[in-house]
């Protein structure tokens, strides 16, 4: 009897790493299948698939940034506001007639500086929790964005500025039709996610980010400058929000006061659905991508089926709770007491 229990336990232990790594992809594939069965003509059409990627393009940047922060057992509530402020700065600079390569750089620099501000606040001001610092900057950055723009939308950017969010890669040379193009934002997502996958999994700094999330005292005792790493993480998170702003500028051709409102919550939700743990140290870049996709497909599919957006909220909320419950169960099995 004991032997049998042991066998089952060890089988569980062997399966856990795979489940942890790829379980979320199963859910994603399942959702795609269900949507395909429900909407066989539309859902997997070229037009709709590229649509989903365009819709998740800027959210995927925020989610990736927030993910890194969550790995350190922190939180960044200000990413939506960072994106809005970066977008507004972009719009003001563009309207002032700056050349496109300057305009394109402004949101990236603005986002980075906002993130740096968060990181410095959390470490130097020794805020008891990143929640507080970034809750503060959630208001500060959005307020600043409205101050510089006067609270009104600023529209009309050049094609170069809009390229990342709006550009199309023509695939007619592959024998495809003109409508079957590749959105530039999709390529951008792939490139950014691969870069950050390498950074988090293959670099020393990336490993230290996970170590800090696992046990900050261990990291400190190993001679890792925890504050420096945290400042890097929050700065990169801001930088990614800046990329999000650049994509959004391309997609909407406008800087507007409500840009990214509550999108920090979507970003956090995507991370949690994707298997990141609030306790820190857990989660994968692939998981975040799956989390973003699941939210995007859910919204897209429900829109296609004409389901009210109120139901979308209920469903997304339910998936978050379910995903975290699975995380709790996993910790119960996987960790020795």
């Amino acid at each position, binding site marked *: 009897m004991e032997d049998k229990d042991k066998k089952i336990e060890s089988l569980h*232990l062997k399966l856990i790493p795979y489940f942890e790594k790829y379980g979320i992809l199963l859910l994603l594939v399942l959702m795609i299948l269900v949507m395909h069965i429900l909407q066989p003509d539309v859902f997997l059409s070229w037009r709709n698939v590229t649509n989903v990627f365009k819709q998740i393009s800027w959210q995927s940047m925020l989610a990736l940034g927030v993910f890194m922060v969550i790995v350190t057992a922190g939180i960044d509530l200000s990413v939506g506001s960072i994106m809005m402020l970066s977008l507004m700065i972009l719009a003001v600079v563009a309207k002032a007639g700056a050349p496109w390569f300057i305009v394109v750089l402004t949101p990236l620099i603005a986002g980075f500086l906002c993130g740096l501000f968060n990181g410095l606040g959390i470490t130097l001001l020794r805020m008891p929790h990143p929640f507080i610092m970034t809750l503060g900057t959630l208001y500060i950055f959005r307020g600043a964005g409205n101050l510089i723009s006067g609270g009104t939308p600023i529209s009309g950017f050049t094609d170069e500025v809009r390229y990342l969010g709006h550009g199309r890669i023509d695939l007619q040379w592959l024998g495809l039709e003109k409508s079957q193009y590749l959105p530039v934002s999709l390529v951008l997502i792939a490139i950014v996610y691969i870069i950050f996958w*390498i950074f988090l999994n*293959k*670099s*020393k700094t990336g*490993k*230290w980010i*996970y*170590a800090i*999330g*696992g*046990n900050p*005292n*261990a*990291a*400190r*005792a*190993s*001679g*890792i*400058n925890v504050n420096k790493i945290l400042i890097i993480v929050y700065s990169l998170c801001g930088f990614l929000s800046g990329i999000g702003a650049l994509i959004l500028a391309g997609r909407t051709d406008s800087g507007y006061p409500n840009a990214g409102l509550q999108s920090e919550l979507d970003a956090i939700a995507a991370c949690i659905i994707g298997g990141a743990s609030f306790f820190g*140290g*857990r989660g994968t870049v692939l998981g975040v991508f799956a989390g973003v996709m699941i939210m995007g497909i859910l919204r897209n599919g429900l829109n296609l089926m004409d389901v009210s957006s109120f139901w979308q909220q209920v469903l997304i909320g339910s998936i978050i709770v379910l995903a975290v419950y699975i995380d709790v169960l996993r910790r119960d099995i*996987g*960790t*020795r007491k």
Partner: protein
Amino acid sequence: MSSTSNPLLEAKGITKYFGTITALENVNLKVHAGECLGVVGDNGAGKSTLMKVLSGLYKPSAGSLFFQGKEEILESPRDSQNLGLEMVYQDLALAGNLPIGENIFLGREPTKNLGFLKLLDFNKIKELTNAHLDKLKINVKSADQKVEELSGGQRQAVAIARSTAFNAKVVIMDEPTAALAIKEVGKVLDLINSLKKTGVGVIVISHRMDDIFTVCDRVMALFQGTNFAESTLSNTSRDEVIGWIMGKK
């Protein structure tokens, strides 16, 4: 070992204040190569604070540290590690979410160059980890096992392995057996004895007289943040050391 040779590590007049609290006052300590010094004292006597000063985690309010006869100022744990001064913390300071090998090399990971990128060399980490664990006769299933999946004794062994992976000259251990099952205690004490044989100076903080009298050559007692008593093991007894802990001579 001989007390005539120069000590490997010597602390003189260490004082540490936390706000208005005096955690340590004018504390002296020394340890020689191949020697094990036991540090005893009641809760709050200042043992852990002293060790954190020695490891560079706390800066002393006053006093100085000499390593191999040379005065050193430790700004961070990295400084003490660079000298060959390693610490095994009571809470072990391991990241449970990382595998054994990555814990052992945390902060000092071997890398390889891929073009202009400097990437972690996971094969080398595994190779070095296995060789090092073999050398210390530590048995684990695989270097890839996450630390959170290990037993208390195995974790302690990993923590000790980490402290000695980089040619440590002095290893400081805070309550190395406190959290262990009885059958695991012996293994850890054996590990300490084999460290001593390689010429490492060991400082063991412990409440357990069994530990002290199994591995230590000398014992010193702290009482209310000050040096209270000190003796070689052969010149004292358990009862006397227990008396020191309670502040009786």
